[in-house]
């Protein structure tokens, strides 16, 4: 049990540290590397929650796919000049105030209104259940088949759209 706790705090620390570094670094490549650390932390949390398939998807797709895309674009777009400019917009204090208000709301809710958060106790792990990937596939290809097909259409549109956007003359 204590190993679970230790791993949770380790991955949570990795996730939050990576996130804070992502939004504060001046150099966009450093931001991308910090974001990779954060995404790996999230993948570890998926594993702790027994979502093994999503753990693999997170590593392959996010860390392997999206982040390589980001790094390519950072290399294509000249960001050296941008790194020398002011990094935060003129209304950064307003953004900070809005986010702090939301944070204060969460803290207040957790201290004062914890009694109202009545989650039923966590369901126990059923014995002899199929593996995570098998269970996911069962539901995805029966109950959620139509959304699955719509998602493939969305990806096709995104492919066409990004190719047109990256063309020489638009």
């Amino acid at each position, binding site marked *: 049990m204590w190993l679970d706790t230790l791993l949770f705090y380790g991955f949570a620390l990795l996730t939050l540290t990576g996130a804070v570094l992502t939004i504060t670094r001046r150099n966009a490549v450093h931001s991308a590397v910090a974001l990779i650390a954060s*995404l790996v932390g999230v993948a570890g949390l998926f594993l702790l929650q*027994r979502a093994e398939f999503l753990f693999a998807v997170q590593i392959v797709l996010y860390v392997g796919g999206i982040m390589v895309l980001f790094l390519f674009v950072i290399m294509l777009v000249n960001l050296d000049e941008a790194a020398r400019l002011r990094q935060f917009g003129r209304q950064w204090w307003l953004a900070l105030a809005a*986010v702090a208000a939301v*944070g204060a709301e969460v803290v207040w809710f957790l201290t004062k209104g914890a009694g109202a958060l009545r989650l039923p106790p966590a369901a126990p792990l059923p014995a002899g259940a199929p593996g995570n990937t098998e269970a996911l596939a069962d*539901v995805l290809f029966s109950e959620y088949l139509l959304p699955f097909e719509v998602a493939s259409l969305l*990806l096709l549109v995104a492919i066409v759209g*990004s190719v047109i956007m*990256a063309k020489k003359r638009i």
Partner: protein
Amino acid sequence: MLHPITTVHYLVLSAALLMIGALGVLARRNIVVILMSIELILNAVNINLIAFARHFQHVTGQIFAIFVITVAVAEAAVGLGILIALFRNRQTVQADEIELLKW
């Protein structure tokens, strides 16, 4: 200190990650970093979905997380394509210098 980890721990972590991502979207000027912050927000949503999927032993939450990841991929690809087209035409990646539609 070593309380057993409950679903609420995951919800608090997800809220913190969402706030960091929202701060990045609202306060940064560099569009590349803004797109990365959007990825942080979508990951916070995914942590929430997975935590509830585990809590109720129901695999639907994980299905939703897969769809969220799909949308995130499409968003990143199109967003970065727009960024390249924008940089080619305006030679800038600062969000507050793109003001053609502002009054």
